[in-house]
């Protein structure tokens, strides 16, 4: 870390190697598009490299890095560059049938152990994420994928824990409605 802070590119490369999967996962969940997620991951590491001299170590490096990638992705989403990705959500959900996992998740009956591909459901949820607001999507990802507490999410996103709770609730509700809408439609 100290070497990286002194501008040692190779030392920073080790940090990239160690954390790139985590950073990429966040970016992929946020933008829903592999190529864009790779570009944003690269951007996040570049920003981290340029700012690492200011990293004081009072937070974990992973927390600091997560905050950078979250902001890079939020900037990207707020610019509206994600609109093309929303189309892929329509395509992915369009083929759902009644017994699919999407149907099970959105119906009012218990989810039985049907053995239907959870992969399909996962793809549908990832795709549906792209129809949420950037803020709702971010809190859902930080909670569900990164497993952060409300307090940690609030620090990452610079907002109150009440806001986190509210965004999570509305995000989940919207996600469920979207999945149901496409399953029934």
């Amino acid at each position, binding site marked *: 870390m100290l070497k990286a*802070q*002194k*501008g040692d*590119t190779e030392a*920073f*490369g080790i940090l*990239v*190697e160690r954390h*790139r*999967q985590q950073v*990429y*996962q966040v970016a*992929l*969940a946020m933008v829903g598009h*592999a*190529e864009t997620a*790779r570009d944003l*991951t*690269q951007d996040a*590491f*570049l*920003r981290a*490299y*340029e*700012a*690492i*001299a*200011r990293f004081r170590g009072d937070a974990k490096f992973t927390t600091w890095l997560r905050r950078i990638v979250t902001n890079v992705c939020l900037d990207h989403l707020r610019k509206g560059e994600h609109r093309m990705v929303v189309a892929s959500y329509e395509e992915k959900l369009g083929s759902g049938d009644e017994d699919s*996992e999407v149907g099970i*998740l*959105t119906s*009012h*009956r*218990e*989810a039985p152990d049907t053995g239907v591909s*959870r*992969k399909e*459901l*996962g*793809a549908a*949820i*990832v795709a549906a*994420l792209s129809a949420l607001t950037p803020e709702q999507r971010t809190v*859902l990802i930080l*909670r*569900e*994928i990164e497993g952060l*507490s*409300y307090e940690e999410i609030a620090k990452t996103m610079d907002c109150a824990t009440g806001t986190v*709770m*509210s965004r*999570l*609730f509305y995000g*989940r*509700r919207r*996600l*469920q409605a979207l999945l149901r809408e496409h399953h029934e439609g």
Partner: protein
Amino acid sequence: MTQPQSMSDALCEALAPQLSAYADNELWGSDREQVIRHLAECDVCRRTLARYRTMGETLREAMNTVTARDLSGITWPPHRALTSPRRAIYNPTRWRDPWPVLAGAVALIMLLIGLQILRPVTRPSNIAEIEQLDAADPVMVIPGDEERMTIIWVFDTGDRSESVDSGPT
């Protein structure tokens, strides 16, 4: 004991945000107890809770399928040129304050105006200065060089309103 349907619906709606927080283990005290009591008698909210949890698990599983191939495009150092972190610290607020840029632009404009004002004016040599002499008829003298000048004498001839005669002296 179960509540009437309409009352239960209203309670479900009122407790919905808390239910989401409960699913995340982020609900405490009386709010938590109220949700637990409601869940004991509300089948709809129990299913909603189960769906929240399934959604989270499925999303985590979907994201855990990232492979080494997915990461192959993320390289270090990147293709674009790097700047040393010591020399170029990323500062997102650097361009958010427009005053230094505006002040620079105003200073530049003032400098250009000042240069324009202070520039020496060179008068073309062939412009004549006309003087009007104090005489009965209007006489105008156009000075030339040291040896020559032109006099224009305007007088009334009677049949014309005015006549002009001129010639070198």
